[in-house]
């Protein structure tokens, strides 16, 4: 098993290098130098060239890449020329908010989707199953922002139960305590994630229900509750580990749109603002962070699965 994990980590590092070269190369090709942003749009060529030389933007692409990676490893994510602040400090200000939004909705969706999928598989083709399947199917086809809009319209504007804007507070504690304003953003992301997770969970639970060990457990007289808890739930949840790892890019995209819709000042909204400003280093750093999170997510999911599932460990 150690050998497998080491090999898996090795592959991840190779992929990480490939991803960073691709993203850096692409963004570098799109925005070769921030000189005009710093010097002003009407700076003359001589000035631009001098600035490029002074800041190393005249060097070959690969040299700039290596220097960027060197800086990254020392925790320097670059400088935002638009906000005149280091990207690392910008991220440090807001990352907790995004982590809270994404984390809360991810935990909620897993906690709800797993029992829901099991319920649907056990009570297959009943009214409850059909209702849940249809609802999941509709939500699955919804763009994040449309779902959020419906929730805002109904629960914030019509019923006045919750706020239509996310919490604007600077302290994480008061954001967490601000249930009135944080419910809708979290629910939006959660519903969307549940819609896809519960579909997988349902089919995974149906596969497990057809296995011999479930029949054995029932035949030896185990109460149905224990069959479901001990044998079905644990085995059916295994594919969810992989699914969560694989769904990180979608979670990040959902996070971006939800934060924009609810005006929640996290990493997603920062990225959105940077798009409008063409704040090159912020775009580059956040895209890279997204890729790193995806790779780590997949790696952790694979390792967790190896640890949890003895059939894979022995293979």
């Amino acid at each position, binding site marked *: 098993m150690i050998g497998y994990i080491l090999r898996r980590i090795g592959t991840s590092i190779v992929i990480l290098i490939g991803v960073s070269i691709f993203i850096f190369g692409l963004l570098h090709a*799109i925005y070769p130098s921030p000189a005009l942003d710093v010097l002003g749009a009407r700076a003359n060529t001589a000035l631009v060239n001098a600035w490029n030389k002074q800041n190393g933007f005249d060097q070959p692409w690969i040299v700039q890449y290596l220097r960027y990676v060197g800086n990254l490893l020392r925790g320097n994510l670059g400088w935002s020329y638009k906000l005149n602040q280091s990207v690392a400090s910008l991220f440090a200000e807001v990352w907790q908010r995004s982590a809270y939004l994404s984390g809360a909705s991810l935990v909620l969706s897993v906690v709800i989707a797993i029992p829901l999928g099991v319920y649907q598989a056990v009570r297959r083709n009943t009214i409850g199953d059909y209702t849940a399947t249809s609802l999941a199917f509709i939500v699955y086809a919804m763009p994040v922002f*449309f779902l959020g809009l419906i929730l805002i319209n109904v629960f914030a504007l019509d019923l006045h139960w919750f706020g239509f804007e996310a919490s604007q507070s600077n302290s994480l504690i008061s954001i967490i305590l601000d249930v009135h304003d944080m419910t809708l953003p979290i629910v939006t992301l959660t519903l969307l994630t549940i819609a896809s997770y519960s579909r997988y969970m349902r089919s995974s639970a149906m596969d497990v229900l057809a296995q011999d060990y479930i029949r054995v457990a029932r035949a030896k007289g185990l109460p149905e509750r224990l069959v479901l808890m001990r044998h079905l739930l644990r085995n059916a949840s295994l594919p969810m580990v992989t699914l969560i790892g694989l769904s990180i890019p979608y979670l990040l995209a959902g996070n971006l749109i939800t934060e924009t819709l609810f005006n929640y000042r996290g990493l997603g909204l920062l990225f959105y603002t940077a798009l409008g400003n063409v704040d090159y280093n912020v775009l580059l750093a956040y895209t890279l962070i997204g890729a790193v999170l*995806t790779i780590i997510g997949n790696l952790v999911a694979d390792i967790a699965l190896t640890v949890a599932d003895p059939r894979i460990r022995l293979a």
Partner: protein
Amino acid sequence: MATTAGSLPPLDITRAPEGGEVGPIQSGWRLAVREFAQNKLAVLGLAILLFFVLFSFIGPYFYHGNYLTSNLIDTNLPPGAGHPLGTNNQGYDELALLMNGGQAALEVGFFSAAIAIVWGALWGAVSGLAGGMVDAVLMRIVDVFLSIPFLFIVLIVAVRYGASVLSLSLLIGAFSWLVPARLVRGEVLTLKTRDFVSAARVAGSGQSRLIARHLLPNAFGVMIVNVTFQVADAILAIAALGFLGFGLHWPNQDWGDLLSNGVTYIQDGYWWQVYPVGACIVLVVMACNLIGDALRDSLDVRLRRR
């Protein structure tokens, strides 16, 4: 047996005699079509998709609403005579906007799915057939692309170079060939050990002929299923782009843009600027998903009733 495609007898398992009835031998594709046609949800999905194709591309010939020139007298009119779905803050007719936006959504959806499937299938087939180092390198490249947050890159490039139907299709296509590539590779890995492939090889087929004539046609099932999901994903992606304000430019409209425009007035109760367009996106995406699910079931031999 003189049974034609149009007059297949309905499947009736319950009344089939013991040991099974000997019927006409039918090709796998015809069985799949019959299976598909008996799935009510799939037919519903196909009907919805067909409706939106007609609505978006033929509709404008019958319904001439204004979606190109601002008309500040008729702004934000509720649905009524002359404007079945009302107007927006520019005085544009919502129904005409929906038709126009539908063209963009469907064009980008199908075009990017076509790019993804062709490129992905070739990539996967070459990778699976070649094996060894080539396979390892090609698949690591797929892994690299799968780890890139796709929406971020699409946004960055669209902001820099502007969004058009062509550029968005290329861009979305460039990031959606990965799943088809993996699927086709898996299919080719099992197909290439089969006897008919060895026979073709012995008969002197080269690698490219093997791929084009023997491997890809047999992997067609997984490809066609995946196309429908790709269309749905692409439509959602351009809707997101439009909503964030980086979508198509005038005179092209996209549904996401319409929706984000309607959001501004949601507090005024102008529901017709939000719900019809939202329903359009959901219906088209749902139709694609329904068709995809049904195709997957009908092409899966194990699930097929004979």
